[in-house]
C-alpha cells in the first residue's frame, strides 16, 4: 500500500497537468495513437519548444511516455494516472452518496412523524 501523501501528490500532478487546454488536446490526440513532437505541434499555433515544455509537464505527471529512438522520440499515452483521475470523481460521488443515504434515513423518520 502507498502512503496517502505520495498518492495524492501524484494526483495533484495529474490534475495540474490536465488543467491546461493545450495539454488536454495533446492527450486527446495521443489517445488515437503515438505521435512525434512535430506531429503534435502541427495543429497548434505554437513553436516546437513550447510544445516540448507541455510534453515535459505531461511526462512528469506520468501521463505520457517518450520513445527511446533519439531522432523521433514518439510520445505515447499512459493510462494509469488518467484512471486515477477518474477514480477521483467516483470517490467524490461515493462521499456524497453516503451522505444522501443517511439523509434517506432522516427522511424516513420525517415521513413517519405525526402531523
Amino acid at each position: 500500500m502507498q502512503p496517502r501523501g505520495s498518492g495524492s501528490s501524484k494526483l495533484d500532478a495529474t490534475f495540474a497537468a490536465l488543467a491546461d487546454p493545450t495539454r488536454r488536446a495533446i492527450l486527446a490526440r495521443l489517445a488515437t495513437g503515438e505521435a512525434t513532437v512535430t506531429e503534435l505541434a502541427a495543429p497548434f499555433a505554437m513553436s516546437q519548444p513550447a510544445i516540448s515544455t507541455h510534453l515535459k509537464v505531461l511526462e512528469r505527471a506520468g501521463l505520457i511516455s517518450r520513445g527511446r529512438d533519439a531522432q523521433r522520440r514518439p510520445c505515447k499515452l499512459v493510462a494509469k494516472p488518467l484512471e486515477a483521475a477518474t477514480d477521483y470523481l467516483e470517490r467524490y460521488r461515493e462521499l456524497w452518496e453516503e451522505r444522501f443515504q443517511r439523509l434517506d434515513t432522516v427522511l424516513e423518520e420525517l415521513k413517519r412523524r405525526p402531523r
Partner: protein
Amino acid sequence: MSKLTITTPAPCEIHFHRVFDAPRQLVYEAMTTPALVRRWWGKRDTEMTVCEIDLRVGGKWRFGLRTPEGFEVVFHGEYVELSPPDRTVHTESFEPHPEVSTIVTTLTEHGGKTTMVAVATYPSQEVRDLVLGSGMESGAAESYDRMEELVRAT
C-alpha cells in the same frame, strides 16, 4: 431509489442528480434545519463540530468537521436565494481558501418522490478539481478504515 449521479459537463462545474423517496417539503427541511443536517452531512464516523444555519437571504451558514486525524475542516457561505421548497442558491467557501463557489439547488416532486438537481459553479477549474479531490482524501481514509475493520475481523 436512484443513486446519486455526478457529472462535470463544464470545466468549472459539478452537477448532482438524485431522487429521494419523500415530498420536497421534507427534503428542504432536512437540508436546512441544523438538528437534521447534523445527522447526515458529516462523514462516516465523523461528527459535525459546527452546524450553524441562518436561513434567510443574506444569512450565513457554517459547517465544520473534525477529521479522524484531528484536522478541523470548515465550510461556510451565504444564502443568496431561498424559495422553499423548490429552489435555493447559496455560496460556499472552504477554509482557508478565499475562493467562492455558487450552488443552485432545485427540488421537483413527482408522486411523492423528490428529484434534486444541484449545480455547483467554481471560480476556476483548479478550485473545482480541488473540491473533487476532497472526495479522494476522505474516500482513501474511509477505505483504510474499512480495510482495518476487515483485518480485525479475520
